């Protein structure tokens, strides 16, 4: 019995080591670091307790980053969901070229973020971008729109992010759609149910659990999204208008060179996500369906 237990622990050891080394240790180290006034690169540090947390409670930059982060995550999430579900419903129907279209829809999700952002920045540039050129030629606008300027930078970021990440919703939702027995739809049709009714009473209940997971994952990922936001305007004047919490945490650590404050921001974000997830589970978790 003891031999079996030992073998069990030995088999578990690599996983425990990986989880401990790659997840637990960084989280605990980050938490520890957040109590220090620590330079990002130099071996200079001093214990400051909760000072960083108290500072952020009244820091306008923190709250504006939080606001931009919530707006970005919520709006992109909503559009990804609507577009993704609509596209998945379409791709679940039988029509010529469906397989090709399923492949094409995945394309934005497969290309590297750096490529996607550079491509979009070229398209949206107000001096030589294709989007402005087409709008001018079509007579929709009389002067180029500053898509990458202050007024439109958040909208542009949202468009790019929705374009890049909605395929995840399509693939996940489509996978669940394909497991719904077609007999249910046939029976509903016989009973005279319209397409909307069939969606409301068959598709939606059947896909509730997958929607729960999609919303949870995409919300977390969008709230912590760094690369797309940074690449859009990281070193630019307008970065101020799309500075989300991950970008602010990066800036504190690597441009202000205040690693302790950056760590405190990361802890705060972690706490917010934990709290948000807990509330989400409490409000929407369907025990019966999940089991």
């Amino acid at each position, binding site marked *: 019995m003891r031999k079996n237990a030992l073998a069990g622990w030995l088999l578990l050891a690599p996983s425990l080591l990986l989880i401990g080394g790659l997840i637990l240790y960084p989280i605990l180290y980050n938490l520890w670091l957040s109590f220090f*006034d620590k330079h*990002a*690169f*130099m*071996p200079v540090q001093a214990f400051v307790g909760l000072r960083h947390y108290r500072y952020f409670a009244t820091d306008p*930059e923190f709250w504006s980053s939080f606001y931009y982060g919530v707006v970005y995550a919520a709006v992109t999430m909503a559009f990804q969901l609507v577009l993704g579900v609509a596209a998945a419903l379409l791709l679940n129907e039988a029509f010529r070229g469906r397989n090709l279209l399923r492949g094409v829809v995945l394309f934005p999700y497969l290309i590297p973020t750096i490529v996607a952002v550079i491509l979009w920045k070229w398209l949206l*540039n*107000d*001096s030589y971008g294709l989007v402005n050129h087409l709008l001018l030629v079509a007579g929709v606008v009389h*002067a*180029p729109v*500053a*898509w*990458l*300027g*202050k007024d439109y*930078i958040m909208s542009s970021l949202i468009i790019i992010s929705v374009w890049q990440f909605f395929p995840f919703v399509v693939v996940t939702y489509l996978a669940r759609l394909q497991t719904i027995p077609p007999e249910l739809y046939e029976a509903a049709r016989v009973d005279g149910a319209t397409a909307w009714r069939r969606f409301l009473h068959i598709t939606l209940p059947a896909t509730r659990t997958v929607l729960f997971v999609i919303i949870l994952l995409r919300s977390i990922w969008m709230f912590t999204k760094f690369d797309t936001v940074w690449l859009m*305007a990281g*070193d*630019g*004047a*307008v*970065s*101020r208008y799309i500075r989300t919490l991950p970008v602010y945490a990066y*800036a504190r650590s*690597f*441009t*202000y*060179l*205040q690693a302790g*404050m950056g760590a405190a921001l990361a802890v705060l974000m972690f706490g917010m996500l934990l709290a948000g997830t807990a509330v989400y589970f409490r409000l929407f978790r369907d025990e019966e369906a999940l089991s």
Partner: protein
Amino acid sequence: MATLPSRSPHSVSRRAFLTGTAAGATAAMLGRPPAAVGQQVRELQIWHTEVEPQTVKVIQDTSIAEFEKKFPGFKVKQQALGWGDLNTKLLAALAAGSPPDLTHLNPFMTASLYTKGLLRPMDELIRALGESDIHEATLKLQYFDGKYYGVTHAMGATYFAERRDLREKNGIKPPETYTDMLKLAEAMTERGRFAVQMPGEKLYMGFVHPAEWLAGNGGAWVDAKTWRPQLNSKSMIESLEYAQKLNKFMPAGWSGQKYLDTLAALANGKISMAYLSGARTIGYIEKYAPEGTRDPEHFAPMLRPHGPSGQRGISALDGENWAAFTQSKYPSEAFEFLRVFYKKENYLAYCHSVPIHLTPIFKSMINDPAYLANERIKKWKPWHDVMVTGLRDKRFLPIGFSRPEDNVLPFLAELDGSGIVADMVVEVMVGGKNPKAEADRAQRRAEELLAQLNFKRWS
């Protein structure tokens, strides 16, 4: 039950393979020239910010080739990096205890590294190069407590690049003051062409240009004694008001565009003045400007105007300095490399790799016929002349400096990195906010930052 595939008649056994490999390796070792056996090639790591391919090639073919010939046991590895990349990479390397043997540094970072005891003095080298021949604009930038801790690699300057032909057509002289500049901008705004465009990178609009505004309007980043920030000083507020007015003559999306976009816009006629320019602009003009306009009669440099509280307009001097660290592995060889680098023929070739942008630091060379013989300098002589005039009239200060004494401030890199000034400028220029209110906000943030960094000397 699965069966193992039978061995092919041409296959090699593991033992035979290992024996063969070992024998081969031994033969290869013994086959090398006797001198090379046991001799360790040492690598001299050099990082710099001149990323133009022709400059990298010139360094390789001249200074490195000569150094390696002189020191056969050494191999020089140069890495050309952009500013932003260099700063981050350098700080990480210092933290890891393995910095390069020699590197370019931005003058605004040097004091910070000096105060942490990371830099190695180079007085002997400076004397050998000719202390009195090094231009005053750069000589003492890295001079702390009676010792030199750096030497500038070459000098470039930033200024406006303008469509001189368009300005002269309007009968307007180059601007002396902010008011003149606003009048010029108004006159240069035409249908389909904006007067001016500033680069949207935070480094420029949020650090380099505000430093120039302060310097050209009688202000400074901080109080010289207490280091208390002066972001809501009269000179800064006046400059912000000027910048806000100037914004009306810029394309709406300037804040989302980059420095190189502004040069392209100037060359292809979308703007009449690029706010940030240097001799590198000549390359853009020669490549993208319409035929028949690629000359100094159409495109000219223009020095900065001064504000109502200033005496003369100040431009940023683009000139990183070479530095060696206390942790450098081969400091003596690093200094030897610099002697080779500054040797006249090598240094001339280096400066000619991007003429005018890489103006020599030696007074004796700036107007040396050998330097001026370069074809591009001959063609674009007015650009060289502006460089000489600016140096003579003390119109240049190192990047990010609001006055010469800023070289001792150990927090300019953090102030730049924080984006506090950039936020203030963008809110005023693009956001149309009240300059005084934004300046007050930036002042509070800057005071907080310096206090957090333990540089607060005021009560």
